[in-house]
Structures are given as structure tokens and as C-alpha cells.
């Protein structure tokens, strides 16, 4: 066997092994999460290694526990879901409003410093979120925004605007300039051009960016912990789940049910628009 033949065969096998390995490490943890959420805690303690739930153990009381409001003995996750949805959607809207004009300007207009601006925005990520957390914590405490969802949304906007500009810009530069010239010839002002021509054309990119921002806001934990920990009515799902795990009397199966509740919305959204998102994230990465 020549070296080439040996390598072909070796890497052929290795490829299958890698694919199987990847499938196991990505799917198994999520399967395990759903599995545990569907069995009572006794069944878990009795046989921790089981990867199946028997028909007699099967239960959905864990979900009832998690979703019911605190008054009726549950954990009140419905309320947390609502809070998370409000904060995330608010963040998406505000971020897009702030990022679209900036991205348009960076991609189209030759203004003073247009080359540096997008790099400047991205420099935001050089500073740790914890560094921002300290002063924002103090400022919001001063302004009385320290345990409000509005304050949280503002912080998320600041965290997501730079990457949104970057993603939108990469898409906007692919729209031919002649389309804008045509609009200008027909008498559109700059603002009209953006609203009636550029935005409809950039819709896929807007959706991808919005989805990514939603994901970041929905999954965020540090700022929620810092700002909202004192006020259980305002907790987001992430924070509610983390606080749930600190409770002594909470069985792990209920914790897993909470994890499923937290994961499902963002995963459903992601699968609905997977292609859109992956292309939006990596556009520009395939150019050498």
C-alpha cells in the first residue's frame, strides 16, 4: 500500500469517527437535558446512568412546577419568560434603530473617518463586560434604573450595536450603488432612499442581525444578575434559572425542566432561520 492509499483510507475512517463524535457531543447533552426533565427525581437517583425514561416514570409535573406562578407554589417561569421576551425584543428593535443608519453610513458614504469608525466600534469588545458593569451598576443605581428592564435593555443595546453594524455593513456593501443612483434620479432624498430602497433589499440581513441580537439578549446572564437580582418580579429566565439552582429544596429534574423552558424559544427561532443566521454571521469571511 502506498502512502497516499494508506492516508486516503486512514482519513476516510477518521472522518467517520469525527462525525460520530461530533454528533454525540452536540446532541447528547441536549437529549440528556430533556430526558431528565421528564422523570421524577427518585428515578434519577435510583439509576443515574439510564439514558431512557420508562413509561411508568414519565412525568410532566416538573414543567408544571416550573411554569406555575410563585403564589400557587410554582417557580413563576411564565412571568420570567415574559420579562425575557420584553427585554430581548426591546433590545432587537433599539439595536436595529441605532445600527442601521450607522451601518449605512459606514458602507456607503465617504465621510471623514469612515474607515476608522467600524473598527472603533468593534474596539468596544476589548473591554470586559465586567469593566462596564461597575460604572453602569452605579449610574443605574443613581438614576433609579437599577432594577428595571429598561436599564437592562439599554446595556444590551450597547453590547450588540457594534457587532450589528459590522454584520449589516458586510451586507450593505453588496447592494449595487447604481440602484441608489436610480432612486436619486427619480427624486428620492437620502432618507427616502434608505427607507424605500435599501431597507427592503437588506431585509435578509436585518432579520439575521435581529435574530443574533435576540439570541445574545435572551442568553445574557451577568448584567441580569447584577441589576435584577434583588427584585424577583423582574427576573429574566436565565437569572430565574440560576437562582432556582441556589434553592435547597429544588430537585435537579425541575432544574432541567427550567433549562428546557429557557432553551426552547431560542433554539426554535434558530432552526426556523438557521441558514439566514449562519450566512449573516459569516458573510465576508469567505473572501480572502
Amino acid at each position, binding site marked *: 500500500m502506498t502512502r*497516499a492509499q494508506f*492516508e486516503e483510507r486512514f482519513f476516510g475512517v477518521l472522518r467517520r469517527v469525527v462525525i460520530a463524535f*461530533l454528533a454525540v457531543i*452536540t*446532541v447528547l*447533552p*441536549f437529549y*440528556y*437535558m430533556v430526558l*431528565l426533565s421528564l422523570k421524577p427525581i427518585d428515578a*434519577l437517583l435510583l439509576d*443515574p446512568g439510564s439514558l431512557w425514561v420508562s413509561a411508568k416514570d414519565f412525568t410532566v409535573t416538573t414543567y408544571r412546577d416550573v411554569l406555575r406562578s410563585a403564589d400557587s407554589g410554582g417557580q413563576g417561569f411564565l412571568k420570567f419568560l415574559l420579562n425575557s421576551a420584553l427585554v430581548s425584543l426591546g433590545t432587537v428593535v433599539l439595536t436595529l434603530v*441605532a445600527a442601521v*443608519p*450607522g451601518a449605512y*453610513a*459606514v458602507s*456607503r*458614504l*465617504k*465621510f471623514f473617518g*469612515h474607515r476608522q*469608525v467600524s473598527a472603533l*466600534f468593534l474596539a468596544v469588545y476589548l*473591554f*470586559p463586560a*465586567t*469593566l*462596564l458593569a*461597575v*460604572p453602569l*451598576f*452605579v*449610574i443605574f443605581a*443613581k438614576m433609579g434604573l437599577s432594577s428595571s428592564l429598561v436599564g437592562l435593555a439599554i*446595556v444590551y443595546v*450597547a453590547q450588540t*450595536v457594534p457587532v450589528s453594524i459590522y454584520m449589516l455593513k458586510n451586507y450593505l456593501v453588496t447592494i449595487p450603488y447604481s440602484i441608489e443612483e436610480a432612486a436619486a434620479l427619480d*427624486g*428620492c432624498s*437620502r*432618507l427616502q432612499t434608505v427607507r424605500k430602497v435599501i431597507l427592503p433589499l437588506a431585509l435578509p440581513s436585518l432579520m439575521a442581525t435581529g435574530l443574533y441580537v435576540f439570541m445574545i439578549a*435572551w442568553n445574557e*446572564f*451577568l448584567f441580569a444578575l447584577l441589576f435584577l437580582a434583588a427584585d424577583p418580579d423582574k427576573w429574566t*429566565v*436565565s437569572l430565574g*434559572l440560576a437562582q432556582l439552582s441556589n434553592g435547597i429544596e429544588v430537585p*435537579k429534574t425541575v432544574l432541567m425542566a427550567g*433549562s*428546557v423552558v*429557557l*432553551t426552547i424559544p431560542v*433554539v426554535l427561532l434558530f*432552526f426556523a432561520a*438557521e441558514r439566514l443566521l*449562519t450566512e449573516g454571521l*459569516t458573510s465576508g*469571511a*469567505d473572501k480572502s
Partner: protein
Amino acid sequence: MTTAPAGAPERRDSGPRPADPSASSGRRPMTASRRANRAGLAFVSPTFLVVLVVVVLPIAWTVLLAFQDAKLVDIQGMGLFGNWSLDNFTQVFDSAGFWSSLGTTLLYTAGSTLGSVVLGLAAALALRKPFRGRGLLRAAMLLPYVAPVVAVAFVWEVALSPQYGVVNDWGRRLFGWDDPIAFLSTREYEVHLLGLHFEIPLALLTVIAFECWRYFPFAFLFILARLQAVPDGLEEAALVDGATPTQRFRHILLPQLMPVIALLCVLRFIMTFNKFDDVYLLTGGGAGTDVAAVRVYDFLTARYDVGAAAAQALVLAVSLMILLGCYFKFFGNKVQEES
């Protein structure tokens, strides 16, 4: 046609007159480049304002706070300036475990960055050619990246638990482990291999593994996108010349992928260096995993010592910048080519 712009430079940018008051007021109309300049600045200013208020100003204030004696209780009445001191920094540098924490952070960051990029590269190479179920697997592989960190951290915690975790149960059944291993709370784990004794920082390694698992999809996405843009002809030519798979990878693919890999390494390094949630949720910073970001949080919430927290965060940011500075000095050209 309603308007008929005169010159060629005018035509590039002919917004209607009413939108441009200075042009209609009798003075000489602005040149297209000046108008583009104005419009550009006008368009970018709302974005800039948001970033200024919520990012730049707070950072500037952190720098000030780091040099002041500030506790959370008396910060309400405090002015912006005053009480200058370097106490916070002496406190940070003298405090027990500062240097070891910085070392832990570096180890954690370097390990996670390297691991996630290598795993992402392997995944991209394995999924390069079509096979049945490829689309499904590709989507499934992004799960760790899109799922909320709190949820996946708890899944790991439960799965690795010594009492009811699936990993220890299977480990005992398949590999005959004598005692359950507490992955997330063991600082040093003794390993006997070929008559040698090793001490491995088990909790730290577990956290690094978590980080690799969570972020390899990110690297995978970028590398796969670049991989699919490599022209087929290059590899075919190498194949005709009799290059083996390793040679084709080393001499054809890797040079093409290098820019995106370098970019990914920088990005992941920055993100991981500042990472807080993952370590906090998994170990709470105990058992030898006290990365610097968790220490900042502890200063802030356990002692309400805003000044010390700010100083610690600042030291963290400065060390990151020094590291990045070194990187760009030595390897800067590659990344610059990419951007």
C-alpha cells in the same frame, strides 16, 4: 425626468434640493463629497451617541473610580473627582492570589481558544464533503453555541455530578472507576500512569473543555465558509501531482485558511479572556478556576468595593491590550491581510 443634474460629480449624489438647505440659500452648492461627508456624519451620529453614552463614558468613569477610594454606600454623594489614591491598585496587586488568578486566566483563555479552534477546524474538514444527514448535523452542531449558557452549564453540572451524574455512572461501569470523580470541585487530581504520578488541575480542565464545546461551532462556521470558497482546481492539481491528503492539507488548504484561523484566534482570545458567566456558573470560581473576571464580580458584590473592582477590571483590560499588542507586533500582517 424631474431633475437634470448638470455635471458628472453632481450626479453621483443628487439628493433633491429641499433636503439640503445650504444649497438652496443662494450660496454655491456643496460638492458631492462634502455632502456625502455631512450625510455620513449625520447618519453615524445616533449610533455614535449610543455607544458614547453607554460604553465610552462608563469606561472613562471606571478609570477614574479605579484611582479613588469608593465604596458603593458612599458613592451616591461622591463627586466625580477627589480622594485620589493608588490604594486600590496596591490592594489588587497585594491581594492573595492575584498573580495566580492572572495565570489561571491565561491558561483558561489559551486552552479554550486553541481547543475550540482546533475542534472547529476538525469539524469543518469532516463536514466538508456532502453525506447523508449533513445538513441536519450541521444545524445540530450549532446547538451548543446558540443555547443559553445558564441552561447548558446546569446540564454539565448535573451530568458530571459525583452523586447522580451520568458520566460517573458510566465511568464506573465501563472503565471501572473506583470512586466517583468530582470534576467541578477537584483542584488537583492525581493520575497514575506508567508508574508516574501526575497532578492535573481537573476543575480547570473541565471548564476549558466546556468552553471548547460551547464555542467550537463558532470556529466551525467561519472555517467552513472559508473552506467552501477554496477553488476546487487547486486541490485537483495537487491530486494529479500525487499529493497525499496530509500534504494537500498542509500545503494547499492550510495557507488558504490561515488568515481566518488567525482572526478566530484573536476573537476567541479576547472574548474568553473577559468571560465571566461560564466559570461563575460551573464552579463559582472555586477549585483553582478563579479567573480574573470572577474576581471583579466578587469585589463588586461581596465587598461592595467599587474602587477595587474597577482597579481589578482595569488591570485585566490593560493586560489584554498588552497581549494583543504583542500579538499584532509579531503576527499582525496576517490579520491585516484578512481584514
